[in-house]
């Protein structure tokens, strides 16, 4: 079960990261829409975050670093979720997000649903992975 979840979520983040890495300027614009960061910082994140998602997606599927990958992806998803809610509260109308061009046109509700689903699955993987021989897994590094 845990392996299947890791494969699915790993593939989701590989896809999401790949889409954004393909069009960093579009992703920088998406970040800009949140009105939280300066353009320069947003541009830096637009180059960095997609690769972080790709590396973590791969690590989640194929390596011993999967618990660390889950931790990073959980933090990223939580931050994105909070930023989305904050944007909505501030009256910012977002129709773009974590899946680059593929998520254009998604409603606020769809964004929330996808983010909650990702977060819940990541937490499930975290608890399953750390419950099974956590010391043995984490001592390898």
């Amino acid at each position, binding site marked *: 079960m845990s392996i299947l979840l890791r494969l699915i979520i790993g593939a989701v983040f590989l896809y999401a990261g790949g889409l954004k890495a393909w069009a960093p300027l579009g992703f*920088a614009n998406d970040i800009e829409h949140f009105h939280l960061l300066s*353009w320069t910082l947003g541009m830096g994140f637009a180059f960095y975050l997609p*690769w*972080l998602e790709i590396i973590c997606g791969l690590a989640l599927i194929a390596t011993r670093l999967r618990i660390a990958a889950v931790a990073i992806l959980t933090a990223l998803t939580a931050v994105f979720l909070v930023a989305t809610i904050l944007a909505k509260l501030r009256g910012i*109308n977002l*129709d773009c997000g974590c899946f680059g061009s593929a998520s254009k046109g998604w409603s606020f509700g769809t964004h929330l649903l996808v983010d909650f689903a990702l977060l819940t699955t990541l937490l499930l993987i975290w608890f399953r992975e750390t419950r099974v021989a956590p010391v043995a897994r984490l001592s390898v590094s």
Partner: protein
Amino acid sequence: MKRGLLRQILLLLGLALLPAIGHAIYYGDRVSWSAPELGKDEVKLEEAQSWGDSVLWVDARPDEQFQKKHIPSAILLNEDRWSELLPAFLNIWSPGKRVVVYCSSRSCAASHEVARRLREEAGLSEVFVLHGGWEKWLEGRK
């Protein structure tokens, strides 16, 4: 356990930096690291206003926001009711008119989407997006 996990996290964070830096170098001068003033299809409020009567203002916000307040003479054309509202827009539009679409603020994308559809589906050429949207218009009124 915590130190091991922290080391692994730092390793992944560092690993992602390498392709990101390479990617940024590859893109080089194709991206601007300072905030772009205007998008390629955007127009500033002052410029749009200088076009006078040749401007056809299009409000791309949802119906309820349009009903509350809108730019005088603006016509409602949003994506929610695109097929329903487009004929009314086309009745008002005439050749030589410059269409300026706006939504609520700089952060909304509805105006860009409506402008794109007017170009691609209605075949109009002089379609612009108001930089800063309705927020900018309100600022201009103060």
